[in-house]
């Protein structure tokens, strides 16, 4: 320091973790959510831009995607919020045992969702290279699949970490809390995509 210093407060008493906006990683996650949200918003804009060029949507001669698998996917992903909320609450309550019990449920839900998603691609009734309509709905579904896949991977790594002794560290509970926050974002984003893929073509 160029100048002598004068001590004011001593901060040794401050905590080393906090939940919510006091956490640095919370801000990082919000930052990446905005990035991904922007990405999806622009993809939605491209969807409506391309739709504006067509006489019909889907274009004449093509059938709208089958409802079954996409709707089943929607129901399961909405139900997955139940264990997700329980995990989030357990994290705030520092209940590591409950988290260890619940994490396999959310990982299993992710696996089921990914399997259904594979079938969903087959039920779109159009291929990505058939026309611009096919390209954009494949793009929306693929983007969301990547979203699910990355969060599923994160969740597995976190689950493994929570099974170790460091699972008891406060910061790991903050991680758990924020991972649950992110899962909410994943299913919230799915709702407009579901409507755009399955219901806008039926309007």
């Amino acid at each position, binding site marked *: 320091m160029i100048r002598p210093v004068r001590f004011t407060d001593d901060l*040794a008493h401050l905590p*080393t973790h906090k939940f919510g906006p006091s956490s*640095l990683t919370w801000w990082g996650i919000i930052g990446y959510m905005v990035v991904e949200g922007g990405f999806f918003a*622009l993809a939605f804009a491209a969807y409506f831009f391309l739709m504006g060029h067509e006489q019909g949507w889907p274009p004449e001669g093509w059938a709208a995607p089958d409802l079954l698998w996409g709707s089943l996917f929607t129901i399961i992903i909405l139900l997955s919020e139940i264990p997700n909320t329980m995990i989030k609450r357990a994290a705030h309550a520092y209940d590591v045992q409950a988290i260890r019990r619940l994490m396999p449920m959310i990982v299993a839900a992710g696996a089921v969702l990914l399997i259904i998603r594979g079938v969903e691609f087959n039920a779109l009734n159009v291929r990505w290279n058939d026309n611009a309509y096919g390209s954009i709905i494949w793009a929306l579904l693929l983007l969301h699949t990547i979203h699910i896949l*990355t969060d599923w991977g994160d969740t597995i790594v976190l689950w493994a970490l929570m099974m170790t002794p460091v699972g008891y560290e406060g910061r790991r509970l903050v991680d758990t809390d924020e991972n649950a926050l992110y899962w909410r974002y994943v299913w919230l984003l799915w709702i407009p995509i579901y409507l755009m893929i399955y219901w806008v073509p039926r309007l």
Partner: protein
Amino acid sequence: MNPEELEDLREENERLEAERARIARDGHHLNGAELHARLDRTWRRQPGLIGWLATVDHKEIGRRYIVTALIFLALGGVLSLIMRLQLARPDGHVVGAARYNELFTMHGSTMMFLFAVPIMEGVAVYIIPLMVGTRSTAFPRLNSYSYYMYLFGGLMLWVAFAFNIAPDIGWFAYTPLSGPQFSPGKRADIWAQMITFTEVSALAAAVVLVCTILKARAPGMTLSRMPLFAWAMLVVALMIIFAMPSIALCSGMLISDRLVGTQFYNHYEHGDALLWQHLFWFFGHPEVYIIFLPATGFVSVITEAFCRRPIFAYPVVVLAIISTGILAFGLWVHHMFATGLPRVGYSFYTAASMTVAIPTGLQIFCWLATMWDGRPRFQVPMLYVVGFIVTFVIGGLSGVIIAAVPLDLQLHDTYFIVAHFHYVLIGGAVFPLLGILTYWFPKITGRMMSETLGKIGFWILFLGFQLTFFPMHFAGLLGMPRRVYTYPAGMGLELPNLLSTIGAFAVATAVLLFVINGVVSYFRGALATDNPWDASSLEWATSSPPPSYNFEHIPVVASRTPLWDEKGDLPVVTGLRVDDKETLLTTVVAAIPDVREPVPEASIWPFVAACATGVFFVSSIFSPWAVPFGGIPTAIAMAAWFWPSSLKRTAEPVIA
């Protein structure tokens, strides 16, 4: 949990509590030389090549960013000299048409994606933590990953150029030219994938900067006391976060059109080439302000320090930065006037484009008022500020001219546009950048740059610049089109082109002089004191160059210009850990101490992850199978990056 386990857990907690009481912290008991030695042991880089690759010190990463970006500036500059040689005379034969297409594509792409944006981020990564009084950026490992992604993207583009597969589609790669039908081969894919690299890098750096600025400011540095450069970088980082997804999306769609046959831009299957233009310019226009706004931050910093007066009307400057950032997203269509738009579209985007002159003008008036009311010292950084104001105002005025649709339709794709954007980009960003590099050089290296060489360099650059680009206005008015490799004699284009070429070599001389000045000063320059310009912000409160840990104690701030206003001893807070890396988080608005935050140790995994991502991106030019086979190693590297090196609990958290 059975009672035995519960008992174990309780014992463990007691042991940790006892350990916690013994942790060394800075303060009355621990300061001065011993504190320095212990902090340095905790924070300094590990030896060896691995240590060098694994470092997460924001100062090292920032320096690498700056040096790499300057190398790309030189490379891009050499390309422009070849182009100027080709255009010096009518019907030139230095290069052919195809090579010329590669040259302007490489020049534009290098300057925009590999020089201008990264160098602003690099300067910010170096200086922001010092300026806001903290020990590290947020997410230092992400910061390291961001640098390597940028480096690999730049290398890929230039290696491709060396192997004669450089892109030749212009820096904005319009479809259908860049699509599968008109650009067979891999040139366009190289361009699109370079974009992917730099955008991943820029987004990571942006998140790092936003979190650092919002959460890691020194106690007392409320938003209304934040240095203007930090404000500028906050807005710029947010703009990157909102703008970059757009180019990620459109270049991703381009790659998939080319690789797997999607039809986004294919008119015959009801795609639309204009979709590209909308998405590209929704990014591309904010991009210009992403480059320009950090420079306004530089100008505010230099003006304040060299006029010895706080910036006039600070709130106006802050609001001007924010409103420029918002307006930047409402202008993109003015790049598309020549594509044909509804009449109301023309009116709206003309008005919006002219509106942006208002906040920019306000900032310029605030700087002029600061100079008028202060006592300016015309040392090199300040000369660059004056050069900036003159040049940028000319570029701004030609911008207002081409915001008008009838004039734009006449001048679209002529050298008038080339003149305009070089005035705003070089005048608006490179001049302040050279000023700020001179200004922060003593902080970064501990030595002063030569004032004499600096002044000579400034004048050659300033005059050479005007000689290069002012005649281009006339060439453009005479109808000389952009991106055409030659022109015929007898149309009045000989003189302006010859002048431009002479000017370009003067500019190159000045840049060379700047580099020589930098290198010589780095080894032989006068030793710098801690605060050689007698400036007011916190980066000058630590030594030059700063120690690995930045500040021995976290400083406390009570005004906008703390080093001018604290007459006596510098107030600091204490109580951070000394033998593990730790820094302080404060609240977003009021900067009240909130959390003690462990800082991640150095890690090789960001480098490994960047290598894996690099293999992934490059191979996806050739096959869609790169997605699973490149994605899995990337995911593994990232999991290893997150995974702690020890699973034993510690008294207080460490990220190792």
